């Protein structure tokens, strides 16, 4: 699974950012335009928003299609399959994304 760290770590345009909702049409006002920002928002958004997007597969789609990181998308799919909810979901999602961010930043550093 080849991933370009610079692509995944870049900031995307406003139209391509991830917008956090708690249910159909109910936007929280929180958005993330990069994986770094996404990690921060995992800590801040209403837990209902994390559950809403995880089980709609929105996180996987955004990470795979917009950020181009199939590996992280696959990891999140695994989380969905485990049917995790509540704060356990927040903690595990945070762990997966922060671990991936660290790896991608190391890869980017090594390639310079």
């Amino acid at each position: 699974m080849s991933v370009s760290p610079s692509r995944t770590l870049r900031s995307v345009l406003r139209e391509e950012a991830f917008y956090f909702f708690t249910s159909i049409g109910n936007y929280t006002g929180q958005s993330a335009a990069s994986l770094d920002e996404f990690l921060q928002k995992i800590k801040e958004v209403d837990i209902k928003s994390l559950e809403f997007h995880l089980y709609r597969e929105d996180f996987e789609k955004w990470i795979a299609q917009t950020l181009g990181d199939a590996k992280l998308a696959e990891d999140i799919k695994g989380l969905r399959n485990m049917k995790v909810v509540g704060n356990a979901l927040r903690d595990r999602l945070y762990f997966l994304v922060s671990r991936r961010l660290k790896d991608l930043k190391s890869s980017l550093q090594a390639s310079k």
Partner: protein
Amino acid sequence: MKIKGQGVALDDLDRQILQILQENAKWTYAEIGNKLDVAHSTVYDRIQRMEEHGIIKRYKAVVDLEKAGMQQITALMTIHTDPKESEHIASRLAEFPEVLEVSSSFSEELVINAKVVAQDQAKLHSFIAQSIAPLSGVLRIRTSIITKKYKEETSQSFL
């Protein structure tokens, strides 16, 4: 109908004609004249003048979308905005064909209200997530999906 400066004042006959047209805009001048006991030329003249002054804005068909085979859902959005961006957001909303009505209202804070239609909940959500949430100045959005209509009147009584 009397013209007063920039405005116009309707008389009873004008109001009766408007009432009839709101119920059925397909009535002929003669039919309206018969109902109101005036000449069809009078009706023609009054309608022409009300059209010219923009009192009658347009004539349209009210379509029963369900019978027309167009399944869709209607939702009411309340959009909280940065006050500096409200006008711009309302103008952008008005450009989307999915948005039927846009207005602003004020209670504890200024909000923008919009009525939206979509084929289903998935499409409604995609539209809001991809087209409305990214607009600069949108702070948050509350959306209610209409489940049942108890009254839907598009005209107002003139009598």
